[in-house]
């Protein structure tokens, strides 16, 4: 694409040896490792500061304990850091790569010889009747908003979905004063037993929750249980959960539902990197199928912060031409990756989650496309053309994975800009 970059790049480009996209664990580790070798590094991130989603912290508040040393390592390095910056295109030039971005409301162009993609993941959001009501959020979404200062004191909260994220978020919400009514894990008990269900039972958390509430708070934890419907006039007011035999309806102010994480691969895909089963394909050095483009962390497969840190360090060293120094990290990376694959299988969403949708349940929230408007015999491209599903502002980031779950569709091609940008950015004006 030539829309803004030729204009902006002419005299206003950031020039670096290595551009790192994303400042979560993988991006921080990659940038710090590369900067240590003397390379000029620039880190670009959409968020407010270092840490990514997992180590998000509001400006002015201290980050989580295990995040501090990594954040310190990045901040103390020579790497330049640019936040509130969305990279919307990545393409090859004669001398390397150009990254087109929007920083706040201004265009930004970065030229780099090599690129590390550490674009993280997002939540798997699966539709159910009422999921579009204000007050229904992702589990990670509620955590993110809580960390940015949203008050949940006294709010009646139901958490549902799947995976290890439910427990710490339940703990955070309870700790922040929410009245936690129920944590519903869709996976069956046998699966869940392995994952510290006792976390939310920590007496200190309940004590803290009780301190905010006048009465004793007893949140239940149910396995093999999922949301069948949310109801409300303007905001969510009630949620119905089921275990497939019995249903139960609870009044609530906030319903958090998330079914684990989905790798964010748009930038890798627009750059032409090979993706298989939703994951960016990388070699032992974390290099993608596009020479000079490396990828680390969740885009190569959901694995959590520890795996992201190791992959990031390997990617940073490799991109800096110090691949030999990264070999000592391979065994740790490979072991963490094996563990990640077993977790992925354990929390896969159950088939019954398809059945909760009615024909009028909205699937594509940007374009308000109901499930009944979509023919399962179509492809995702046909669904776009016939119904606009996946063509709205989020460009299929939410409904894409939902349609994949319902119909087995693979996502359609990605085209730049991969995020909506201002017209002024497109024409390269500041």
């Amino acid at each position, binding site marked *: 694409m030539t829309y803004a970059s030729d204009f902006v790049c002419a005299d206003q480009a950031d020039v670096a040896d290595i551009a790192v996209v994303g400042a979560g664990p993988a991006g921080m580790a990659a940038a710090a490792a590369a900067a240590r070798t003397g390379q000029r590094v620039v880190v670009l991130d959409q968020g407010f500061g270092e840490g990514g989603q997992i180590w998000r912290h509001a400006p002015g*508040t201290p980050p989580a304990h295990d995040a501090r040393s990594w954040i310190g390592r990045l901040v103390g390095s020579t790497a330049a850091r640019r936040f*509130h910056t969305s990279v919307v295109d990545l393409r090859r030039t004669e001398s390397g790569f150009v990254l087109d971005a929007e920083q706040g409301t201004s265009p930004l162009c970065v030229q780099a010889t090599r690129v590390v993609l550490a674009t993280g993941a997002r939540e798997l959001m699966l539709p159910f009747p009422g999921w579009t009501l204000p007050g229904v959020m992702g589990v990670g*979404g509620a955590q993110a908003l809580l960390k940015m200062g949203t008050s949940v004191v006294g709010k009646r909260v139901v958490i549902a979905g799947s995976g290890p994220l439910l427990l710490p978020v339940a703990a955070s919400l309870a700790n922040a004063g929410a009245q936690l009514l129920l944590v519903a894990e869709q996976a069956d008990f046998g699966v869940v037993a392995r994952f510290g269900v006792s976390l939310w039972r920590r007496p200190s958390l309940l004590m803290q929750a009780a301190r905010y509430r006048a009465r004793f708070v007893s949140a239940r934890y149910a396995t093999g249980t999922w949301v069948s419907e949310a109801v409300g006039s303007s905001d969510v007011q009630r949620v119905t959960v089921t275990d497939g035999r019995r249903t139960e309806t609870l009044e609530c102010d906030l319903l958090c539902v998330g079914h684990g994480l989905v790798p964010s691969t748009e930038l890798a895909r627009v750059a032409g990197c090979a993706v298989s089963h939703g994951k960016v394909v990388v070699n032992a050095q974390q290099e993608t199928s596009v020479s000079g483009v490396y990828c680390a962390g969740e885009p190569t497969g959901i694995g959590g912060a520890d795996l992201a840190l190791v992959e990031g360090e390997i990617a940073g060293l490799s991109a800096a031409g110090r691949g030999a120094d990264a070999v000592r990290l391979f065994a740790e990376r490979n072991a963490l990756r094996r563990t990640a694959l077993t977790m992925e299988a354990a929390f896969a969403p159950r088939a019954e989650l398809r059945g909760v949708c009615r024909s009028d349940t909205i699937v594509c929230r940007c374009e308000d496309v109901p499930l009944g408007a979509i023919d399962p015999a179509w492809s995702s491209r046909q669904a776009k053309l016939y119904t606009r599903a996946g063509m709205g502002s989020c460009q299929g980031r939410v409904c894409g994975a939902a349609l994949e779950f319902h119909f087995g569709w693979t996502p359609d091609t990605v085209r730049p800009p991969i995020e909506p940008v201002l017209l002024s950015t497109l024409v390269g004006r500041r």
Partner: protein
Amino acid sequence: MSDSVRITVDERRVDVVVGTSVAAALLGIGTTAFRVSVTGASRGPLCGMGICHECRVTIDGVAHRRACMVAVADGMQVITGAASHA
């Protein structure tokens, strides 16, 4: 006490905590409907991290800004979908 900034939300002046996101600030003053969908339904924040675009509001005259990705600033003017459709 945290420092605060004064922003305007749909012509209502409110003091909010410095460093917070517009989304967190709006939820903090009881605003849950951020935008109006293409079929006229109210929508609020879903992902909290810039993915879903459900929290889009008009900030300082620029439409379709993701409230969860923008930090509050003194004098900021925020207009929700509910107000712009009124």
